[in-house]
């Protein structure tokens, strides 16, 4: 793919399996994408589609049974898959940081926030005072009041909204260049979600980070992302810049996702969840993985795996019928997208 020098991250043909006793779960299937410097790249899809696994693979945080079968992950030109554990440790945190979904489980319950923040400064030559100042600055930055006392507290002593702020502060204390945010708002109250989204957005600008945002919430995507990849059953099925994707979705699954959104113009009903279940990743059959649920499927879909093709500039679709989808779905969704843009 192009503009290589501008990409902070370039993932190519990544394939990852979870190996279990007598089966292989193909969690990531031939996934390729890139993230420009300074942009926010979104991953959307149902849970279990491989978006979180992709994140964990980038940081090489897979559990023992996760096995990268092939592919490369280039971070500023370095292939992360070829780095030693020791080299990875230097990249984790300082170069690539990660925000987890649930702060209550991602922060160690029996260590003070201070200690968990200071872990970001291990190996640096900062003095105790500098560490303290930096930690206070971070808590202040994410909007936690009275940071001096908060620093010496445990995560369970924080209130709901403050918890996610604390984790963001801990992650960002190391000033990563690339931020992986794995469903950062899913576990939060609806009222707080918006605040956190805005906070992440603002900090990203302020610290000049690039970001990969994982979510199943298309609303968040349309608000925050420059470009989006839609994942299904371990593969990217569609990838484009956000406006194009919302205006001209070309994959039937993308269409399904958009139709399953509740419309917020007060119109009730017309919620169309996609029929059926995602396939069992240990038994992927011949053909398109979306075939059993697809209402536009034809014979070829059941026999041949569709390759991700660039059907317009920077608009990639993995569907045999992508070109013919224009009329089938474009019109339906355009209306929605316009409505959506009018709102933001």
């Amino acid at each position, binding site marked *: 793919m192009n503009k290589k020098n501008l990409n902070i991250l370039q993932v190519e043909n990544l394939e990852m399996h979870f190996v279990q006793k007598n089966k292989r779960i193909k969690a990531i299937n031939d996934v390729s994408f890139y993230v420009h410097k300074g942009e926010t790249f979104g991953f959307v899809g149902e849970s279990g589609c491989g978006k979180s696994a992709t994140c964990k693979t980038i940081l090489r945080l897979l559990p023992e049974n996760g096995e990268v079968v092939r592919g490369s992950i280039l971070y500023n030109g370095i292939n992360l898959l070829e780095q030693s554990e020791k080299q990875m440790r*230097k990249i984790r945190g300082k170069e690539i940081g990660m925000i987890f979904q649930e702060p209550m489980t991602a922060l160690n319950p029996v260590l003070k926030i201070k200690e968990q923040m200071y872990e970001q400064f*291990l190996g640096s030559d900062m003095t105790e005072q500098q560490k303290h100042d930096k930690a206070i600055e971070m808590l202040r930055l994410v909007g936690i009041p009275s940071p001096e006392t908060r620093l010496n507290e445990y995560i369970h002593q924080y209130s709901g909204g403050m918890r996610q702020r604390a984790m963001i502060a801990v992650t960002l204390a190391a000033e990563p260049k690339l931020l992986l945010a794995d469903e950062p708002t899913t576990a939060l109250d609806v009222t707080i979600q918006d605040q956190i989204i805005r906070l992440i957005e603002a900090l990203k600008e302020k610290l000049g980070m690039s970001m990969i945002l994982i979510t199943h919430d298309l609303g968040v995507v349309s608000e925050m992302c420059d470009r989006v990849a839609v994942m299904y059953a371990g593969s990217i099925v569609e990838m484009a810049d956000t406006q194009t994707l919302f205006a001209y979705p070309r994959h039937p699954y993308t269409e399904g996702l958009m139709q399953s959104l509740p419309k917020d113009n007060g119109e009730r009903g017309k919620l169309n969840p996609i029929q059926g279940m995602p396939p069992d990743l240990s038994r992927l059959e011949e053909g398109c993985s979306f075939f059993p649920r697809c209402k536009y499927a034809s014979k070829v879909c059941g026999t041949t795996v569709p390759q991700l093709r660039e059907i317009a500039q920077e608009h990639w679709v993995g569907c045999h019928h992508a070109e013919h989808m224009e009329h089938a779905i474009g019109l339906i969704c355009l209306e929605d997208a316009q409505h959506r843009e009018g709102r933001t």
Partner: protein
Amino acid sequence: MNNFSYVLKRFLQMIPVFIIVTVLVFLMIRLIPGDPARVILGEKAPLEKLAAKRVEMGLDKPLIVQFGIYLKDLVHLNFGESIRYNQPVVELLKVRLPVTLLLTLTSMFFTVLISIPLGYLAGMKKDKPADQVVRGFSLFGLSAPSFWVGMILLMIFSVHLKWFPINGWGADWGDRLKSLILPGLTSAIGVSALIVRNLRNNIVDIKQMDYVSFAKSKGVGRLRICLRHIIRNALIPTTTLLALKFLSVLGGSVVTETVFNLPGIGSLLVNSILARDYAVVQCLVLIFVVVVLVVNLLTDILYSVLDPRVTLQ
């Protein structure tokens, strides 16, 4: 602080339990079927001796008066006289209690030494050969009776290899420590089996916690992950169990001391019951109960110190 009032509350709650136990221990000698004096002195004792014994034990007075006397003696730490050793129970305790405490501490030391590395290893290598071996050990330790393990150890290390003394308690402290090793190991094996199992399961659970992944995502080194994030958290429930198992080891001293002929309060309890030396039995039962109550309270406090999420209330 709040903690102090909790400890005070718990302490007050212990008092009724202690009082009931005291009553039970007092009644114990009176619950024995037949005449306690005859039980103590034997079937063939002459009548006048029996009568004298009854008066000496205060058995001719009303029950409530007897209890009053009993309580008064307790407060003055007067536990009566051992008929077997012909000396005050307090004197016996001065010699015997330290042996049991040392034995229990030695066992706990071995338990920690065995079970923490093994539990950690098994948890980190779940389902690998190392885990299978450790689980095998644990299954064995749970099924093997401690008196038998003790006798086998004696047979191997004392009788055949002659590394340790066969019998009892040495004359000087060097010998005494040596004679604590096998009995300490004996009770440690049974307790370790349980602790290893507990720690292994904790490690298996905690290893896949988000906070371990998150710490890794910060680039924290392996040693620090193990110590501060995995072991630190896994040890919270294990330490509590360990503290409670202190009591099993203490109670198990009854068996261990008998096997190894150690002059502690465990073997004293058994011998006193067989010899119907009831003053000693009463006193020892009370001591065991006090230790249990105190250790239970300390365990609660320890738990709240280890886990900041727990508040004492």
